[in-house]
């Protein structure tokens, strides 16, 4: 099993991180909408936000790890069949996805910490508040958190549609490369 990436394919770690982040982000978005509509007497009224915040902070760590892994590793090149505009668009969407994810996490942190309270990560540890002292910081950070989350979901849709276009219309390897590690002998049979 190939852990790292190479020029043709993603390694196990990149693939796992990609799907872990995808699942987590989708889960956090759904949880966020659900928990803000809960009745005061609902059993999850306090538990759901605790999970949302804790997972958000952990996601930030995972994203940093993922970004580091991406920056200090070989990345597979885009398929030759991809048009230049497709490569450029895909690259920009990937950049925006990272940017949105970090901005959403940071804005979420600034909601919870606007009165100087720390963010609790389950009952394991706390992330202390960083005082920036903006008036009604919780409202501003809250609006940023919500609208960026909507933009992120639009980007996710675009990212997914593009992948499906490659998979269904172009019938190329784009999606398959992110689903399983391509064995070297599959790619270059004549080298064996």
């Amino acid at each position, binding site marked *: 099993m190939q852990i790292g990436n190479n020029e043709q394919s993603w390694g196990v770690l990149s693939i796992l991180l990609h799907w872990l982040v995808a699942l987590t982000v989708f889960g956090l978005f759904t949880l966020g909408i659900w928990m803000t509509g809960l*009745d*005061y007497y609902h059993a999850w009224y306090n538990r759901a936000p605790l999970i949302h915040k804790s997972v958000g902070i952990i996601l930030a760590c995972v994203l940093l790890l993922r970004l580091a892994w991406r920056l200090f590793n070989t990345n597979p090149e885009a398929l030759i069949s991809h048009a230049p505009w497709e490569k450029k668009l895909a690259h920009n969407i990937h950049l925006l996805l990272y940017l949105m994810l970090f901005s959403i996490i940071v804005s979420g942190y600034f909601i*919870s910490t606007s*009165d100087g309270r720390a963010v609790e990560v389950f009952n394991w540890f706390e992330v202390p508040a960083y005082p920036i002292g903006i008036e009604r910081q*919780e409202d501003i950070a809250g609006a940023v958190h919500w609208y960026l989350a909507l933009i992120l979901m639009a980007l996710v849709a675009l990212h997914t549609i593009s992948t499906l276009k490659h998979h269904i219309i172009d019938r190329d390897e784009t999606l398959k490369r992110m689903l399983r590690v391509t064995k070297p002998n599959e790619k270059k049979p004549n080298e064996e």
Partner: protein
Amino acid sequence: MFRITIITAFTALVLIAAIPVPAADYVIDTKGAHASIKFKISHLGYSWLYGSFKSFTGSFSYDENNPSASKVSVEINTSSVYTNHAERDKHLRSADFLQVAKYPKASFVSISFQEQGNGKALLKGKLTLNGVTKPIIIDVTHVGAGKDPWGGYRRGFEGRTTLTLKEWNIKRDLGPASGQLEMILDVEGIRQ
């Protein structure tokens, strides 16, 4: 001649002093924060939660010889709601509670003032809050009046009234023990 002048002047002074003081106008000392609009609501029926509106302005007129002519008006910035927990304050400003984006101001304008003796009075007035305007009655206690050490003249009252959340278009149900809240009002006016 000189004596007559003295007597006349003295008589005039006595007469001036005997003339009833006209209704004096007071500005509520929000600048020096000798006034507060607080509220107290039950949490689940187990404890009391206190909150306040940090930003408001107001004035009143009061004449000791004709107290029933007293008038009060107060304007409150609803976004200044404060309960010592930013996430809760954010929620209180939202559509679930005070809808501050839609109704940024609450106001109270007096209709009548009836002294009950013993420093107590009933203050009736129109309260506009969360898009609802209705008459309310505030139980008033006259706390004191007199010169302050800095050349001014001050007068203060405290007031209590109970508001039922549902009557003021607050849709969130906080449970059977928390349907009402008590307003605790303290005003000190500086005579103009």
